[in-house]
């Protein structure tokens, strides 16, 4: 008998699942089936314990105290920065700026790099952006007289590359800001192509990697990106920590986002001068323990390896598309060419909210609503969808439970 890659990984999975204490919880008396990892992933023991250990044994504010505890804390925080720089393939560790989430990272770029964009120039986003990569650019448009352009998607849920090219053609686009993976459709966008095309007309490009980094290895240098953002809590790390990576020369040229402690080199009442990067962008006491927690999460993810993660999620997604397509009245939203472990769907005669509540009664957690992507919903002609999303700890059995429960829900309403 031949053993496929996914079987090998499935065999390992029970061990993996045991590292997530929350997964053995019951909800409404049923075993928890957690299919909402794209909103936020659960945390393995190593992350939970590592953060608790730091607070129990080696914690103080960083960069400030001239004492042993502060030095240990600073070391751990800066080691996390180095770890994340390696994870993204950054050339310099100073290119990693700690923020509180992806939303803040994108706002930082919109505010700071945005101030270097001239009125009359444009920012180009896409129709499938999360509000986090849409609203900051609208605010910039309204503040600074910058045009906001929107690249359309095709009916199957891929970015329309021809239209993207046309929107770039007049050379007015200073910055492209596009998702690396859609949180609604699961679409993985062709980052290499997008970057090449943007650079060919002299535009810089930001990729929102909030979903993508969870599912595949990202190397910003190899991609040749200019800005990359992600958020810790979707990558098995804690909440309250996000990452902005940008090329050193861009960060050097950008004005600070927030003022305060730690971001200055000297302060008088007349004038302050800014600290070098990355401190220039990290005003105030940062999320110290959370940064360390994210570093631990990344170690953990890399120990599993992205090859195994990708194979596992591809197998799950294929299985899910198969079994879901057999549920009467169910439609999967979008058929993108490349997709990660995120599937949005609707069911005839059953509203997504009712789906979510009825699944919840059976211990199954999915998300329902517009997924912080209202313009995309409008483009798809929908007001809401239900969404199941997968993580390393998701099993085929859980997807089968989802499908059979959906069948029962539909019978209930029809």
């Amino acid at each position, binding site marked *: 008998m031949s053993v496929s890659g996914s079987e090998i990984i499935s065999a390992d999975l029970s061990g993996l699942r045991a590292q997530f204490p929350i997964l053995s919880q019951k909800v409404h008396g049923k075993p928890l089936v957690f299919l909402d990892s794209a909103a936020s992933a659960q945390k393995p023991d190593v992350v939970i314990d590592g953060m608790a250990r730091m607070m129990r044994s080696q914690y103080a504010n960083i960069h400030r105290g001239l004492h042993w505890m502060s030095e240990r804390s600073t070391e751990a925080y800066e080691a996390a920065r180095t770890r994340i720089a390696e994870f993204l393939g950054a050339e310099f560790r100073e290119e990693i700026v700690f923020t509180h989430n992806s939303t803040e990272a994108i706002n930082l770029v919109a505010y700071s790099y945005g101030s270097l964009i001239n009125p009359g120039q444009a920012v180009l986003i896409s129709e499938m952006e999360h509000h986090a990569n849409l609203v900051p650019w609208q605010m910039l448009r309204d503040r600074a007289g910058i045009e906001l352009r929107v690249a359309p998607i095709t009916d199957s849920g891929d970015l329309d590359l021809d239209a993207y090219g046309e929107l770039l053609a007049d050379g007015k686009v200073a910055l492209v800001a596009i998702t690396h993976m859609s949180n609604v459709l699961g679409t993985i966008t062709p980052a290499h192509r997008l970057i090449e095309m943007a650079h060919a007309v002299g535009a810089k490009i930001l990729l929102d990697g909030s979903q993508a980094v969870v599912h595949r290895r990202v190397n910003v240098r190899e991609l040749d990106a200019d800005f990359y953002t992600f958020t810790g809590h979707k990558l098995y790390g804690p909440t309250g920590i996000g990452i902005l990576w940008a090329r050193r020369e861009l960060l050097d040229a950008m004005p600070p986002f927030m003022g305060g402690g730690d971001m200055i080199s000297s302060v008088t009442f007349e004038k302050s001068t800014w600290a070098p990067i990355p401190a220039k962008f990290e005003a105030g006491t940062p999320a110290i323990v959370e940064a360390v927690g994210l570093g631990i999460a990344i170690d953990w993810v890399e120990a599993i390896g992205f090859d195994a993660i990708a194979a596992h999620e591809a197998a799950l997604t294929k299985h899910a598309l198969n079994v879901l397509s057999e549920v009467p009245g169910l439609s999967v939203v979008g058929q993108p060419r490349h997709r990660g472990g995120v599937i949005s769907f609707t069911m005839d005669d059953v509203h997504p*909210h009712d789906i979510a*509540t009825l699944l919840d009664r059976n211990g199954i957690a999915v998300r329902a609503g517009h997924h912080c992507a209202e313009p995309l919903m409008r483009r798809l002609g929908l007001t809401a969808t239900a969404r199941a999303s997968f993580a390393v700890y998701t099993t085929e059995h859980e997807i089968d439970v989802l499908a059979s429960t959906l069948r029962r829900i539909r019978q209930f309403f029809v």
Partner: protein
Amino acid sequence: MDENSLYNTIIVNRSRAPLHAGVVERATRLGQGTNPLCGDRVRLSVRTEKEEIENLLHETRGCAICIASTDLMAEAVTGRTVADALDLARQFTDMLENGSSMVETADAAMPDALRAFLPLRTHRSRLRCATLPWTALEEALDHD
């Protein structure tokens, strides 16, 4: 399924086949409620005569809870005075939002059918689905 507590027969039936859907001719008052979180929308058209609700119909786009709640509301307020209907709106919202034991002894004026939504008290994220039509009703009746 054990969902019967929330998705009981009356709620499921009314969501599938509402009895009071439509638009009232010669409506004297209109109201709308929308939930930006999910895109649900309730539109009410009402004909009042001397402060009494003669007829109320709705056009609802939403989940089962929302449609059933709107339909049962239409039934409950038709024939009531405007003041009475607004009272009922407050009682209904109170019943769901203040999960106190008061609820069980609540006003005898609360029609039984509306008590079908009581299990929502343990699904607080869905409360708004049931109260949305009552918000629309308040809008319709408060402003002449």
